[in-house]
């Protein structure tokens, strides 16, 4: 019984390989089309991951600056701020360091600030928030609370930017998801067409096999094997391709340049690749299933 099963399995693989061999061009096309589809998928994921990564940078920059009135008690203010949740760190800048800050901002006309009296400049507190604690409501809330505190002159934070970033992050997520679902369906569709290209040639073969008493699984299992071999190979080809392109990119120092814009390029993680691999497997399976379905529809007699 078990040896019989093994015989069947060996036979299925033999038939699958025979099929691949006897329609090598068809299989190569299917292979190439699928590679392309997975490549596009991986490429989009790579772009998405990098855009997402880049945008987290903006989030990290969420800073609030509290200018103090002349003669205000800085310790009171600092202690009050410390009671607020979600703060990463607080930094106090005295009049003097304020001047330094200004000099840093307008570096090329630095010389002319030399005559400025530090007391002209305000003292202020810079608050840096934790990434995950930032949401629109949160920051505007805090803004209102600090603004009304005694000794505080102006509270400054980039409200517009914050709104936009929250909104953009949201859209990025939604669009990312939509594109992903779209690509998933697309990859099934492409596997479907590609495998159909291979299977169509077998229509007569399938009919004949059924006529001489082959069961559906006898006919179908080699097809699934054939489909999955194509899927797996084309998946690895596409990962390899993407990786080589990525490496070339790094090699020619494009990433250095992008780093200049604070864009830091990263490759896909193992998990992300694995995710696409699963999608590839599923789409290979569904592709085979769908494209061979009509041959196995048997009206009850």
């Amino acid at each position: 019984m078990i040896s019989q099963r093994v015989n069947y399995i060996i036979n299925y693989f033999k038939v699958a390989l025979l099929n691949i061999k006897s329609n090598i061009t068809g299989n190569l096309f299917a292979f190439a089309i699928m590679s392309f589809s997975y490549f596009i998928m991986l490429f989009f994921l790579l772009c998405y991951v990098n855009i997402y990564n880049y945008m987290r940078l903006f989030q990290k920059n969420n800073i609030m600056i509290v200018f103090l009135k002349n003669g205000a008690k800085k310790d009171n203010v600092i202690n009050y701020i410390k009671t607020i949740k979600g703060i990463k760190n607080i930094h106090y800048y005295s009049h003097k360091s304020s001047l330094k800050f200004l000099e840093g901002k307008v570096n090329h006309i630095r010389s002319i600030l030399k005559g400025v009296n530090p007391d002209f400049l305000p003292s202020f507190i810079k608050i840096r928030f934790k990434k995950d604690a930032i949401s629109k409501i949160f920051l505007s809330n805090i803004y209102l609370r600090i603004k009304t505190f005694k000794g505080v002159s102006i509270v400054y934070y980039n409200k517009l930017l914050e709104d936009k970033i929250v909104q953009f992050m949201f859209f990025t997520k939604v669009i990312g998801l939509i594109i992903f679902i779209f690509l998933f369906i697309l990859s099934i569709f492409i596997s479907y067409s590609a495998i159909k290209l291979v299977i169509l040639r077998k229509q007569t073969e399938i009919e004949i096999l059924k006529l001489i008493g082959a069961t559906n699984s006898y006919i179908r299992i080699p097809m699934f094997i054939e489909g999955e071999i194509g899927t797996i190979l084309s998946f690895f080809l596409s990962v390899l391709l993407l990786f080589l392109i990525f490496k070339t990119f790094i090699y020619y120092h494009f990433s250095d340049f992008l780093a200049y814009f604070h864009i830091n390029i990263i490759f896909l993680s193992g998990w992300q690749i694995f995710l696409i691999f699963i999608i590839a497997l599923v789409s290979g399976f569904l592709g085979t299933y769908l494209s061979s379905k009509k041959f196995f529809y048997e009206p009850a007699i």
Partner: protein
Amino acid sequence: MIEFNHVYKSYDKNYILRDLNFNVNKGEFIFITGPSGAGKTTTLKMLIALEKPTHGTIKFIDTELQNLKPKDIPFLRRKIGFVFQDFKLLSNRTVFQNVALGLEVSGIFGDVIVKNVTEILKAVELFVKKDEYPLSLSGGEQQRVAIARALIQNPQVLLADEPTGNLDEDTSRIIIDLIKSFNNKGTTVILATHDKNLIRMGRARTIDITKS
């Protein structure tokens, strides 16, 4: 063993067969005859559940074919060898592989295949062509491959649709003798033909479906 009861068959309202009735006993050898387009092929196809009668019932051993579930059809077909009028060979497999398929679909693998295929190919005088592909065979050679594939399953019933249509008299005789020898070993044979010579050679019960 096989019973046709009041079988009618129509395609788009045109009745091809009307009230066809006949029995075939186990081990019998019968001819089905009738002119071109009479419905010989259709009759045989109904036996392997490839066509469905419009009315009436067909019984094979104990099975009423109209009650057969789709998943049981392959098992019915393994009991019945079928030589198709248009051969139905796989063009991407050699003669040997085509014949071997008759066994492989039933889950038989290994050395026994080589032995049986060799034997049957010698019987139909095609062993020298075992590694050729069907497209490089003559019409008569393809027909003999089809016969070999049907016989290798050692079926309970052999249905042969015009199995000598492309064969000259001598080769026809070899084939008929081969089929007869299977018949003598207990295989029921139903042979559809309009070749009067063949019927004369076969000397067996003849059912003329036009008269049904």
